């Protein structure tokens, strides 16, 4: 049981990053029906930007700022990554997608693939071919979730009953990850559902010319969508760095793919769907470790679930889509973007 919950926690944390990236996918898809394959690489650039920001602020591998300085540094580097990615996203939209507004549907898709290749090599040229380390400035604490005992003395005192290896643990990094993700998601949902900008986005998504006829500046709305989506990817990059401690030019491809799956699973174009899909995929990915090795146990999959992770995710996705052809939340909420 401990085992299961620990995996669940880990999955949710990993899923939060997927969710943030999936949001960008889903927004861009929602508005111009483009599978923005370059989005994963924007995330990669985001992770590199946050490292760059930290080193600009003088953080080396060994410095451990505390207190308000730490908070400012964290916020600063997160914002730096977000703004950097956002500008990059807008730039990409201008150069690679805008000229294709009226082109056949698949043309921008290929353009996106091209951009993805460009960004990947750019990451490589910038930071080399190897992993680069993300300074671990955020102090690490482990919070034991279970099994615990709570003293009745006030203030209540929580103690962990087992060794770390046998408890469900959530770390300060995990918490930060979740907090940033949740804050951003809530902000985004509010933006899209409640603001005039959000309504304009949905209008552009449904009929570009008609939206223009309502007085909407279509180009600006599309740019904003890319701006926001890419900013979220930048934030995801920052969280990723904190969470896993290193980054490399090639992570974008994998993350992009998984996040895309997440977006589709939730119902592409749907914001809450993207979040749900991201979390679900995150958890699912970890849960595959529970599938036993059929060569040993007689049931399960040959070589165990770990070797089949991607396949299992896809199988589940396909199953879900067979029964819910527009993703988990795709139909119930007709809202786009």
């Amino acid at each position: 049981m401990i085992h299961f919950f620990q995996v669940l926690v880990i999955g949710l944390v990993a899923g939060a990053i997927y969710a943030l990236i999936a949001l960008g996918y889903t927004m861009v898809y929602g508005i111009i029906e483009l599978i923005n394959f370059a989005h994963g690489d924007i995330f990669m650039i985001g992770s590199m930007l946050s490292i760059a920001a930290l080193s600009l602020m003088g953080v080396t591998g060994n410095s451990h700022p505390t207190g308000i300085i730490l908070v400012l540094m964290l916020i600063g580097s997160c914002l730096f990554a977000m703004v950097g990615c956002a500008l990059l996203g807008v730039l990409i939209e201008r150069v690679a997608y805008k000229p294709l507004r009226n082109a056949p549907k698949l043309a921008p898709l290929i353009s996106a693939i091209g951009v993805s290749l460009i960004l990947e090599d750019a990451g490589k040229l910038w930071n080399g071919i190897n992993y680069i380390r993300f300074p671990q400035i955020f102090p690490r604490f482990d919070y034991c979730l279970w099994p615990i005992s709570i003293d009745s003395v006030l203030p209540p005192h929580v103690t962990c009953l087992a060794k770390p290896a046998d408890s469900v643990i959530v770390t300060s990094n995990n918490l930060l990850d979740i907090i940033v993700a949740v804050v951003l998601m809530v902000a985004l949902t509010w933006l899209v559902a409640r603001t005039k900008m959000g309504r304009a986005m949905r209008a552009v998504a449904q009929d570009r010319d008609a939206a223009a006829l309502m007085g909407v500046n279509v180009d600006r709305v599309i740019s904003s969508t890319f701006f926001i989506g890419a900013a979220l990817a930048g934030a995801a990059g920052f969280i990723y760095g904190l969470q896993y401690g290193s980054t490399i030019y090639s992570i974008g491809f994998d993350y992009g793919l998984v996040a895309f799956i997440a977006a589709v699973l939730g119902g592409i174009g749907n914001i809450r769907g993207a979040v749900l899909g991201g979390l679900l995929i995150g958890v699912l990915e970890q849960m595959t470790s529970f599938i036993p090795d059929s060569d040993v146990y007689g049931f399960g999959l040959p070589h165990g679930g770990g070797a089949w992770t991607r396949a299992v995710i896809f199988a589940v996705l396909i199953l879900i889509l067979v029964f819910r052809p527009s993703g988990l939340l795709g139909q119930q909420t007709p809202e786009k973007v």
Partner: protein
Amino acid sequence: MSSVRTLLPPPDTRKVIIKWVVALLLPLCVFTFVWSGEGIVNNVFLGYLGAETSTTFTWTTLIEATIFVAALYMVIIALAGYLTAADSGRRGWIETWVDIVAQVVVPLLLVQLMGLIMGLAASIIVWGAYSFGRSRVRKMLNYTPPPPLASLDTLTEEARAQRVQQATAAGFWFATIFAVISLVADIIYYVAGLVSNTLLIWIVARTIILPIAGYFLGQLGGRTAMRRALKAKENGANGNGVAKSKERQLASLSLARAKEKIREIVPTDQPLLGPGAQRFYMILVVAFAVFYPVIDPLLFGYGTDGRLAAYGDAGYYVILALGLNIVVGFAGLLDLGYVAFFAIGSYVWGLFGSSQFQLLTGITVQPTIWGWLFWPMVIVAALIAALWGIILGAPTLRLRGDYLAIVTLGFGEIIPVIFRELDKYTNGINGIVGVYSPALPGVNWNSITTIPYYYLILALIVLCVFANIRLRDSRLGRAWIAIREDEIAASSSGINLVNTKLLAFGAGAFFSGIAGVYHAAKLGTVSPDNFNFSDSIIYLAMVVIGGLGSIPGVIVGAIAVYAINLQILGQLDTLAASPDNILHVFRSIPNFAFNNVRGMIFGIILVAIVIFRPEGLIPSARRKRELHHEEQKIPEADEGDALEEPPGAPDFEESVRVE
């Protein structure tokens, strides 16, 4: 009129004959005397004459080379006849000649200099620059080409005969002049001691044969041209009535289509672009492709095997692109997991056509015999792939657009994992080694021979193109396109959406299976890590860049992507490493290597192509239309993308509105 049969053309047609004779002699002479043409011819005849100087040819290659040479020169002479007969005479000499130099001669030189692929790539840039420059110059000179419809004319019987005669004269004179030039050149070579005595026989023979052949070939060209002329009605005096009615018909078409149609009618302003001329080009291209392995060493020197191997690889991409084109281009179903069927095809032959089969079944496998089974297995594997296409397609049918894409993507990821993890059968990650090559009588065939594979892929491509065209133009092809355009309307026109879509998946997978079998046999090993999402993406890029739905387009797209990525970008460092290559200068930049930016360059090229030609390099007529009419396409508010389920599905009704 035609009482005096003379080869000396009347003064008024002399101009047009000179125009085309010069225009064709230019490239022909460049090929013959600057490049390898004469070398090939001489080699061929030295082979026949038994001179020990020729080491390049065995008897079979000798015959092949002879056929190629004959085809090449004959076609060009006949073309001279055709062009003089088909020309409306409204375009100037200089213009034509400059066009020929920029569009044919320069590329010939580039190809000679840089090799086939790089040369063609450079030529494309030259072509682009030239057409840009030409339009600039035209604007500057305030020159507009004559309007196309004005050249619509009928030819009386008499006029036709006269044109044929003119063509005959052109053929004759073209060949004669060419013979004289060759003679002079050879005399110079002979004096310089570069031509062996034995070849003198050939030189004399050629000087006699060429004019005679020219006479008949010119006539042939002329007759070919006349087949596309509008015939005047015999009885009535006003023959132009035919042209008028045709003109009216053409005028009712949109401008673009009328232009297309007018090109097909002789006389025309641009006979080089006419379908008649294209016949001749086709002969040239086919002869070149068929005899390429023989003439390659003569054209480009060492490394024939390497080039043929590369073309063999490019070839299966072509097949894959053709297959994917059915799914994506015709039926409009986005498939991001096409690699799955390629993998299935590869594994079918990998498991069957190797000792793995013996290990699995205990049946003794005789490699000498098993190679024969390759042929039926091509079809079997393709059918198995098609079957899987259908099986995998089935659950996806309720899905639309990008949901479908993700499911296919899923299959693309799942299938290789299955092959990797079911190692009891597939040998898992280690892959299968020693996959047999096909067997054919009289052909020494193993995994390192390149020529048989070159022909095999050529044959397979021809088959696939043929099948593609047939399918496209059939009832089924129309149904696919209809589904792509509008599912509801298609369904209401009696098209069974489920079956038709499954057939598209199946047909696409079928071709992929063929490519897979070929791939397994040619490579000699199959391993699961060669089938990735990025493969599927590349196939898709090939199809889109070439032109969705356009068969020549996807062929060009596949070749272009392969050539750019592997023949050009993948080789830049190799080239730069050679001190006598111009790229060598890049080596002086510290730490610079092309492969550091290979992906970036490729990405930029992809983006650039797509932006400048969003409809693809060779768009299908349909797609061209689509692009230009985009604004008018009203996003069918209430149906279109709201349609997330096929009619009949339980949730369908809630998701759709039809009016």
